[in-house]
């Protein structure tokens, strides 16, 4: 079975380490905040200028001056810091953020990512995504492995306009967890019940399959 959005978030959360500063993109990456393992403290960075994003506010805490990068009302956790957009992107471009998680339309075996523009469709903008992928050493891309029509999104070469070049080294799809190294995808783990053959079939880029590909496990909720 392909992973659910929640399972994808759960799997990404296992990559968090105690003391990490983390930027989570919109969509599945945002859900990662719900699965931070016990005993691990991470500080969430929101690129509009908040380090230490807390939970959504209660009605009483609601404050129009307190939002995240998705423009949602949020709170600041104890120990948070608030600053300007220039300061925020100094953190991002300066490589100070330990882990960035963001979605994508396509990634390729060279670590290129396309996530912001589909020619012919309405273009809304890249927001902070180009800065995030250029600035971070440690990025996990979350995406579906193939389109609804079965076309692979893990390619030899991205077809859509890029968000960043050669910057992605890990990808979690609904079918597999992969690393990108030396011009190839390396299959590290597969979703429960998903066969290696299915992953091979749905990966258009060069794929290296080790002898043993462990199946991900998830706790019953």
């Amino acid at each position: 079975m392909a992973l659910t959005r929640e399972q994808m978030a759960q799997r990404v959360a296992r990559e968090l380490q105690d003391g990490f500063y983390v930027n989570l993109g919109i969509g599945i990456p945002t859900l990662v905040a719900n699965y931070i393992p016990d005993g691990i403290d991470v500080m969430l960075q929101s690129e509009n200028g908040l380090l230490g994003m807390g939970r959504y506010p209660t009605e009483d805490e609601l404050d129009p001056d307190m939002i995240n990068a998705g423009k949602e009302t949020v709170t600041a956790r104890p120990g948070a810091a608030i600053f300007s957009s220039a300061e925020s992107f100094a953190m991002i471009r300066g490589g100070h953020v330990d882990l960035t998680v963001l979605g994508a339309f396509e990634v390729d075996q060279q670590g290129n990512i396309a996530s912001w523009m589909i020619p012919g469709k309405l273009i809304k903008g890249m927001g902070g995504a180009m800065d995030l992928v250029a600035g971070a050493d440690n990025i996990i891309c979350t995406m579906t492995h193939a389109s609804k029509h079965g076309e692979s999104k893990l390619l030899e070469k991205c077809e859509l306009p890029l968000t960043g070049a050669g910057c992605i080294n890990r990808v979690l799809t609904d079918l597999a967890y992969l690393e990108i190294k030396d011009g190839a995808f390396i299959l590290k783990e597969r979703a429960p019940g998903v066969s290696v053959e299915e992953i091979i079939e749905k990966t258009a880029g060069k794929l290296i399959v080790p002898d043993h590909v462990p199946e991900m496990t998830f706790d019953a909720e």
Partner: protein
Amino acid sequence: MAGFDKRVASYEEAMEGIESGMTVIAGGFGLCGIPENLIAEIKRRGVNDLTVVSNNCGVDGFGLGILLEDRQISKILASYVGENALFEKQMLNDEIEVVLTPQGTLAEKMRAGGAGIPAFYTATGYGTPIGDGKEVREFNGRHCILEEAIIGDFAIVKGWKADRYGNVMYRHTAQNFNPMAATAGKITVVEVEEIVEPGELEPSQIHTPGIYVDRIIQGTFEKRIEKRTVRS
């Protein structure tokens, strides 16, 4: 107006001198920390052919979105322009030129403009359509593109508190692009919720020192929320 007293008496006075064809840099992220009354004054004045530099372009009927209603904006530099039907329509009809700019690059363009740095190199956008036609140089094995600074004829800024010398503090994430915008205007206008006496703001807590600020005005704000998310 005497000495360092930057206060003006009306919004009309606050935006005195704005003309069609000018470049206006605006603070704000989404609808958070936007100079909503200064924008309304620009609408009232009916100037057009404006180049606007702002992370977003408001929503239908609020923020910078109201300047679209009478087609006052001919060009915008922004990182994200969704959530605005009128904007989309004008963009698709080529009635407005949109220069999509990565968010960090946009902040740095304003910061550099205010700091007298004409251009800077960044890895952001290299290998993407944003890098097309821009000068490329390699630093420490990384390809970077040359991005130019921005200076506005006007910068419009939303602060929380200011003293009459124009020292400004921002509140929470309403800070965002406002401090950079404040440095990058030939004329910088700041509207705030409260103007206090010099000495009342702790000097080390000032976000924007008064040297950058030409005019300040106290206003009342709707502070519309774009995405109201609460937990039960």
